[in-house]
């Protein structure tokens, strides 16, 4: 019986350089698929650091370098990966990741291939290097995750019957738990209701390595939904992204059957039963003693579990439930709510409220930017890469950003189209015309038409004295722009708003949407809204917190 258990798979006792490279390739792919979700674990309401994207970019550079040396020597490949990580490190998380890769490589130095114990040693070195690389190491981050993972690997490797798969299963298990504990260690995480993004990224990398060892990499097409959903949830701000991240990060493809049974027999080897059961599926639970063992596992093949149990003794309390049935409705809702399974929209926006507005209308990814902070071509390319779809529509929402956006069309490896929106109102109007159910060209055509249905009013403060035609502008004056042209300048904010609305003939509009900026209080915006309603009884009036910098008001007139 014992041999039967062991024969269920070939133990993996050594890992070659080629396999090292492939397992990190798998890790990078998994990270790519989860980048959106990790990005969404943002402590700050403004996406000032896209951890997932930074880690993906760092790993890509890592893997590009890993392809250089001949593929036989684990030491050389790890060395190359460390080099690549260092060169490509992006953002804080990328820098720590590069330190981890450096330590990992030093742990494998001189090794042609490596054993479970040597892998544990390399993880230990990785953890050490990560802590040493920082002047002020902070707990509750990916540092904690790599440290706890390394410790788990060490204790697992001390048991000499453990192979690489055992070790990585322990490692991933510990990584997940460690990530879940991060809010307990870092107050900002707890307050924001998220787990640490870098820690989660670390966990995803380790999960990717485990995927490779198990030979069951998940298919990328199921993750589109995840990314979009988490992104949207997190932008609902009040939504506990912590919970969302936990429930969403699990595989979505097939839940299989929840299989539960009790085996009664003699001299049952609980540890071996557990190991075998764990190799058969997820959420494995094996408890009991040498005469009675209770088994719980989620598996695509419940029959195999039952057969196995019968080979050990008598089977009792057998329960098999199809979890796909239970989840079908839930999944369908999710799929249905995904804005674009095939097409993603990337929008350049500044301001939390505006971001939320764009996301609520089906934007997949926001590039932070606007009038005074034009994103680079690389920034937009990043967003294009991070979305899961191959077809991407870009809304630049500013005339100065249109050229940069167009530049990405030639560079990106995806099918990218730019709908040349020149303002936030145009961007929103175009987005309203977006329909995930029709093809890319039709969307671009309809969205381009839709952007012209709206007029844009922007109110900002003059940064210097100026004279524009008949208009004399003094520094600090509020100026009103209609479709990008300065039409009004005066010392009073509300008056500037009214004069500009007059200039745009707001009385003929059907709907006025006022987005108030980051310096405007909600009550002040509400007061102004009342006054606007008084003057323009015809159109519907919406007052929305835009949170944009520099512009006291952005008004969409439609």
């Amino acid at each position, binding site marked *: 019986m014992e041999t039967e258990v062991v024969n269920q798979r070939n133990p993996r006792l050594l890992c070659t350089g080629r396999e090292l490279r492939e397992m990190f390739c798998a890790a990078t792919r998994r990270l790519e698929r989860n980048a959106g979700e990790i990005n969404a674990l943002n402590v700050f309401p403004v996406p000032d650091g896209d951890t997932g994207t930074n880690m993906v970019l760092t790993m890509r550079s890592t893997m590009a370098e890993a392809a250089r040396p001949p593929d036989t020597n684990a030491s050389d490949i790890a060395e190359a990966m460390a080099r690549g990580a260092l060169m490509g490190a992006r953002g804080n998380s990328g820098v720590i990741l590069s330190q981890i890769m450096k330590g990992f490589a030093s742990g494998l130095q001189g090794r042609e291939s490596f054993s479970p114990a040597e892998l544990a040693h390399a993880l230990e070195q990785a953890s050490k290097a990560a802590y040493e690389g920082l002047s002020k190491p902070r707990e509750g981050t990916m540092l904690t995750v790599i440290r706890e993972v390394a410790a788990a690997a060490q204790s697992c490797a001390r048991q000499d019957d453990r192979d690489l798969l055992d070790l990585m299963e322990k490692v991933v298990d510990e990584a997940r738990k460690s990530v879940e504990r991060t809010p307990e260690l870092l107050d900002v995480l707890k307050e924001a209701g998220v787990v640490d993004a870098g820690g989660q990224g670390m966990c995803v990398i380790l999960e990717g390595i485990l995927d490779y060892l198990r030979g069951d990499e998940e298919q990328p097409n199921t993750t589109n939904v995840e990314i979009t959903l988490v992104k949207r949830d997190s932008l609902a701000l009040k939504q506990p992204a912590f919970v969302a991240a936990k429930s969403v990060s699990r595989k979505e493809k097939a839940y299989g059957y929840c299989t539960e049974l009790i085996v009664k027999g003699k001299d049952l080897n609980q540890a071996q039963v557990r190991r075998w059961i764990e190799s058969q599926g997820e959420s494995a639970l094996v408890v009991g003693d040498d005469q009675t063992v209770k088994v719980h596992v989620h598996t695509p093949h419940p029959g195999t579990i039952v057969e196995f149990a019968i080979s050990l003794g008598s089977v009792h309390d057998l329960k098999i439930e199809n979890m796909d049935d239970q989840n079908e409705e839930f999944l369908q809702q999710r799929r249905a709510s995904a804005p674009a399974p095939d097409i993603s929209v990337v929008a350049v926006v500044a301001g939390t409220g505006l971001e939320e*507005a764009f996301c609520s209308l089906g934007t997949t990814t926001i590039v932070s930017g606007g009038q005074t902070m034009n994103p680079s071509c690389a920034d937009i390319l990043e967003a294009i890469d991070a979305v899961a779809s191959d077809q991407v529509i870009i809304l630049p929402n500013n005339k100065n950003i249109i050229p940069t956006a167009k530049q990405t069309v030639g560079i990106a490896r995806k099918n990218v189209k730019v709908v040349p929106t020149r303002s936030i109102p145009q961007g929103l109007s175009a987005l309203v015309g977006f329909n995930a159910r029709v093809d890319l060209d039709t969307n671009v055509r309809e969205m381009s038409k839709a952007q012209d*249905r709206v007029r844009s009013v922007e109110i900002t403060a003059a940064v210097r004295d100026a004279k524009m035609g008949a208009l004399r502008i003094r520094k600090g004056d509020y100026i009103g722009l209609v479709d990008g042209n300065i039409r009004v300048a005066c010392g009073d904010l509300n008056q500037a708003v009214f004069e500009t609305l007059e200039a745009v003939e707001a009385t003929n509009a059907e709907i006025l949407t006022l987005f108030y900026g980051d310096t405007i209080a909600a009550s002040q915006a509400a007061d102004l809204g009342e006054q606007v309603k008084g003057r323009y009884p015809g159109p519907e009036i919406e007052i929305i917190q835009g949170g944009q910098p520099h512009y006291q008001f952005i008004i969409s007139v439609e």
Partner: protein
Amino acid sequence: MSVRIVTDSTSDLPKELAEELGITVVPLNVHFGLDTFQDGVDLSADQFYHRLLTSPILPKTSAPSPGLFKYHYDRLAGEGHDIISVHISSKLSGTYEAALAGKKSMPNGCHIETFDSKAATMGVGLLAVAAARAARSGAAFNEVVELVRKSIDGIHMVCALDTLDFLQKGGRVGKAQAWLGSILSIKPIISMEEGEVVPLERVRTYGKALARAKELIGKHLPARELAVVYSTDAEEGRKMVDYVKTVSAQQQVCLARFGPVLGTYVGPNSLAFVSLD
């Protein structure tokens, strides 16, 4: 032997038209809390919309019982009729299932055919009308069955809504789910495909929704049967009828009203155009 048509109250068939063509309309139920009404029987559309807008309780709806179908089938069969029963999409309501159960409880030898129209409102209504007109002009049971079967794919709808809220709260939002959660006010234009709600387009204002709906109607014209359905704004309904008459050069355009059951899901200020090829 003559053929009689049975439908349900989600067809929104105007009473006079149903009476004129001898169509039996089996009512669904509307519940405000513990108050239960039969759609269009003891709750008029006016009463319903008033209550919808003033009641803190959201109405719920339920299918007629199989027994009610059996009652009507018995009655018609007893008068010596064959029966063709056409109903709202089975993805939106259990009505078709109830009709089917009613049919199964009938003795062998009764000619009853039940259909899932995969449509709602006058999509079901126009199907019943077409079947009734064919029966009236002397078509045999099998011929009417064949006509209905072929006509189902020829039902088209373009429906402008004031909001998706009612569809969402009623759990019938279907593929228009993608448009939920917008921070900005949007006006959806929906249709039905494969028996469920699908989003066609969204615009910012009701005026634009109506204008766009008019453009979308074009590709379904001319048609065998035409209808306009409104929920609360009869004036817009009449205007739309005039518009459809003008662009289609067809004089028969039926004006109908979303009854209490469908009103629960479309809400006030909804306007639909329905055609049957």
